């Protein structure tokens, strides 16, 4: 028998559900169809990752669907390369190179990200495992975004129930430079439920969305919401994958997207000493 969920756990799960059910703003990030779990890259480990998404059935004009710039989403290949390093047992740092290949065109630079992500306490210390995510983004304008620089913050929430992991990443984005600089904070989400069936192959379902500014939501039809049934697991030599097909749920969403993420972790050497066993932030 699983430990019965206490009132605090249920409260946190309700909050988590409410956060992902809210009409959410902020652009969906098509370079990263990934839901972050609570766990971080272990100290001294480097993770090499590539996230890829192809818009099979998208929109014919820029600024619609997954496109935030002048280039249309139809036929677009989003391609990101990421290196993540475990600074401590609870904090990781990452750099991203985002590329894009519009239909009928070559692969080109679309932006870069710098990210810090951490987890608070150890698993099972809180009723819901909590982490944080802070990212600075640069975009190539006007082709792939209308904002030059953005700051993104996400609380990361995870609850494991048996072999089920329920994860939610509500997203809060602020434009630092470019169009929308004077606007408020956008709100979006990435969320998922993963079932640990077998190391090599497990199922899950992921959700991504965004619908504008917190204080000025876009009309429902102009918001973007996607559901991705996924399979994930580990291939030989520790290569991890996540493959999914995404269906747009609103008129503004792209209609059909295929994503394929690959990652590989290796120990490269620790720069900082081990985190205290019962610490909570570092």
């Amino acid at each position, binding site marked *: 028998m699983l*430990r019965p969920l206490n009132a605090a756990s249920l409260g946190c799960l309700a909050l988590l559900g409410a956060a992902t059910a809210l009409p959410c703003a902020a652009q969906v990030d098509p370079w990263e169809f990934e839901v972050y779990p609570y*766990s971080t890259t*272990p100290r001294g480990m480097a993770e090499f990752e590539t996230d890829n998404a192809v818009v099979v059935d998208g929109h014919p004009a820029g600024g619609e669907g997954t496109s935030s710039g002048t280039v249309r989403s139809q036929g677009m290949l989003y391609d990101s390369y990421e290196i993540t390093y475990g600074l401590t*047992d609870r904090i990781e740092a990452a750099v991203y190179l985002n590329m894009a290949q519009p239909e009928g065109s070559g692969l080109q630079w679309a932006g870069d990200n710098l990210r810090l992500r951490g987890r608070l306490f150890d698993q*099972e210390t809180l009723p819901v495992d909590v982490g944080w995510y802070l990212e600075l983004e640069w975009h190539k304008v006007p082709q792939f975004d209308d904002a030059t620089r953005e700051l993104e913050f996400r609380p990361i929430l995870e609850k494991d129930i048996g*072999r089920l992991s329920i994860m939610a990443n509500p997203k809060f984005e602020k434009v630092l430079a470019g169009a929308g600089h004077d606007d408020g904070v956008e709100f979006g989400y990435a969320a998922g439920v993963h079932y640990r069936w077998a190391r090599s192959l497990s199922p899950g379902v992921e959700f991504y969305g965004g619908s504008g500014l917190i204080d000025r939501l876009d009309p429902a039809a102009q918001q973007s919401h996607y559901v991705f049934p996924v399979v994930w697991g580990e291939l030989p030599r520790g290569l991890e994958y996540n493959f999914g097909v995404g269906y747009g749920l609103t008129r503004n969403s792209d209609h059909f997207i295929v994503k394929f993420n690959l990652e590989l972790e290796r120990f490269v050497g620790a720069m900082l000493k*081990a985190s205290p*066993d019962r610490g909570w932030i570092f």
Partner: protein
Amino acid sequence: MRINSLMVICLMTLSNGSADTDVNAKVFEIRFENHRFAPQTLTVAANTPLEIRVVNLSRERIEFESFKLNREKVVEPGATVTVKLPALRAGAYDFFDDFHPDVPEGAIIAK
């Protein structure tokens, strides 16, 4: 998966890999030395939260990992880490060293 888990339990029992531990304890210890975990089978009480202290007595860096339990921790040579686990449903839960695929996989048996 269930058949695999049963096979692991049977093989470990036959090979005397089972733990001589107090099933009702809440803190357990798994040591890593001579390129293997000891005990390889750890029996714990089901439905009770527990902690596992993973002690790395070897000169190798290991990553204590359990897929079913969603746990993953690097353990430096000579170091000890604590892995907290929720109350487990009765059954078998894998653990292994993700850095060394040749290290025999262990199992936590909750009953």
